[in-house]
């Protein structure tokens, strides 16, 4: 084993141990619901994951935690979490198949789909990356333990598996910060990174409890409310019902979900300021203001399109579906209440695709390239154009998000935003091309394919119907890759792939 790979093992080992802990915790759900057939599967999954974690810690060697190390740990860690996180799907579905008398009515075709390992890995990758595209046809027929595991993966994945690991198994020294940053996070709430991630969990728990009770009050059964609060706040979008939130046919539930999805789209440091009563700083925050503007403008535009194309009979219906679907897409949640693929116009679908590609605030639970990068690029472009009108000796300030940047910082910020945006576009085009080759063009149109890939890469989960257990295996791999790169903001995965090809040499 190469020495550079061995230095990754201790951090990977801790991530796997945290994952094993999640599986052990889920046994409580199986016990509470009397689904005893699910418990051996969870125990086996936890034992395998823990053993691999233990071996990684045992045979790994500690090395310096630089940017390369952090990115490789993030990329490899998330891939392994997705693979091993599929074990509960695999083991529980096989238990139900091998002991039908024990599993009772749960041995359904929907659960049986998870006997194919790839479907479980797809579901797990979709869950941890907070995407929400699913291999489940009838979610309501799944055992409660599996429903919980799906929601739990999204809840943890929304905040981040490294954030989870740092919070409970803090790495000694300064390594935690590098790892934290490699998981597409940068803002700190406290000077200490461990304290920051613990506060993030504290905020997340407060909001999850509040969201659960809000959803229950507007009419959701309590089990559904718990799961949808977890997947809504983490902007994941898995549901425990057959047709996502459309199953309830209840506008009140949809309107109650909107503030939950918006909360998931706002950066955790801003939530901390808000909970601390610092409303002024929240109002001054550039990203938060732009999230508000972007959500409002996008919703109005989409409602206008639905009205223009007469998609629904009444303007109230257009308001209901347009508002909900734009916020669901732009917040990268993916709850679906409308038949987007079948009923909506091309322009409406492409508007949602753009919303999914952009995403909302950096430092929140959303996917996409993030609004702040789009703003940086827009300001950078304006600056470059207006530069021509000033003498070369002129000293001009570049301000973004309340910070005045030096020329070097401006170049760095613009470079980062350009690279992420370009990689986003390139990988989107690669995904679209691949999916076009893999799915039938008689059934799915170009806009359907664009929508599906944008949904996977933006970690959204809205679907035009392409994703499902019957999808070709190559298409599943392709969308999983898009989810993986999208969640980690492209660079860590490309760094890992480069390291695999060139052996980690600089």
């Amino acid at each position, binding site marked *: 084993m190469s020495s550079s790979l061995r230095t990754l093992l201790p951090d990977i080992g801790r991530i796997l141990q945290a994952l094993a802990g999640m599986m052990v915790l889920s046994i409580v759900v199986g016990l509470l619901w009397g689904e005893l057939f699910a418990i051996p599967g969870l125990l086996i999954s936890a034992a395998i994951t823990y053993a691999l974690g233990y071996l990684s810690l045992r045979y790994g060697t500690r090395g310096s935690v630089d940017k390369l190390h952090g990115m490789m740990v993030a990329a490899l860690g998330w891939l392994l979490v997705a693979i091993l996180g599929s074990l509960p799907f695999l083991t529980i579905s096989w238990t139900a198949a091998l002991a039908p008398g024990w599993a009772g009515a749960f041995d359904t075709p929907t659960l049986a789909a998870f006997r194919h390992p790839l479907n479980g890995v797809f579901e797990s990758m979709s869950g941890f990356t907070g995407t929400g595209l699913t291999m489940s046809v009838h979610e309501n027929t799944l055992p409660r333990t599996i429903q919980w595991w799906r929601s739990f993966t999204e809840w943890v994945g929304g905040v981040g598996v490294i954030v989870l690991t740092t919070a409970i198994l803090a790495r000694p020294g300064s390594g935690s910060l590098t790892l934290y940053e490699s998981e597409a996070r940068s803002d700190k709430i406290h000077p200490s990174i461990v*304290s920051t991630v*613990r*506060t993030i*969990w*504290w905020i997340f*728990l*407060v909001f999850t*409890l*509040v969201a*659960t*009770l*809000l959803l*229950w*009050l507007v009419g959701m059964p*309590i*089990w559904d409310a*718990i799961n949808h609060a977890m997947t809504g706040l983490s902007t994941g979008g898995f549901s425990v019902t057959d047709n996502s939130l459309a199953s309830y046919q209840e506008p009140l539930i949809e309107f109650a979900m909107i503030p939950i999805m918006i909360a998931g789209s706002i950066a955790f440091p801003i939530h901390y300021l*808000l*909970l*601390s*009563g*610092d*409303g*002024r700083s929240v109002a001054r925050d550039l990203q938060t203001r732009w999230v508000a503007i972007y959500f409002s403008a996008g919703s109005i535009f989409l409602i206008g399109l639905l009205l223009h194309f007469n998609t629904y009979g009444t303007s109230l219906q257009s308001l209901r579906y347009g508002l909900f679907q734009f916020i669901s897409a732009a917040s990268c949640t993916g709850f679906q209440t409308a038949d987007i693929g079948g009923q909506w116009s091309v322009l409406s679908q492409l508007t949602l695709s753009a919303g999914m590609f952009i995403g909302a605030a950096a430092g929140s639970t959303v996917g996409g390239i993030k609004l702040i990068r789009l703003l940086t690029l827009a300001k950078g472009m304006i600056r470059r154009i207006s530069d021509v009108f000033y003498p070369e000796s002129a000293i001009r300030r570049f301000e973004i998000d309340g910070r005045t940047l030096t020329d070097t910082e401006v170049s760095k910020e613009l470079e980062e935003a350009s690279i992420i945006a370009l990689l986003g576009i390139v990988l989107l085009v690669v995904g679209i091309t691949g999916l076009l080759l893999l799915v039938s063009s008689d059934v799915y149109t170009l806009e359907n394919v664009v929508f599906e890939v944008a949904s996977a890469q933006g970690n959204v989960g809205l679907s035009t119907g392409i994703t499902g257990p019957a999808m070709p295996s190559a298409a599943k791999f392709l969308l999983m890759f898009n989810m993986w790169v999208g969640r980690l903001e492209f660079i860590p995965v490309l760094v890992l792939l480069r390291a695999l090809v060139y052996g980690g040499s600089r």
Partner: protein
Amino acid sequence: MSSAIATIVSLLTQLVPTDLASVSFLSWAGDRDPIYDLLILTGPILILLIALLGRMWLTTGLAIGYLLVFVGHLLHSIISE
């Protein structure tokens, strides 16, 4: 009011066995706002109560009260700041 609740939360975290998930979570998370700490402590109990009793005037009233405390405290902190 806030300090009284902080004392109650602090007493609870000392008196209640730390194997109770929400209590051990609070001591793990460190010192935060006592009202939100109280919501973290009582939230799971309320959800359990709802799961056991179902939708009735008592559980509905408690859930409304819970949300009012959250919104009220949030607004109060923003205004007083």
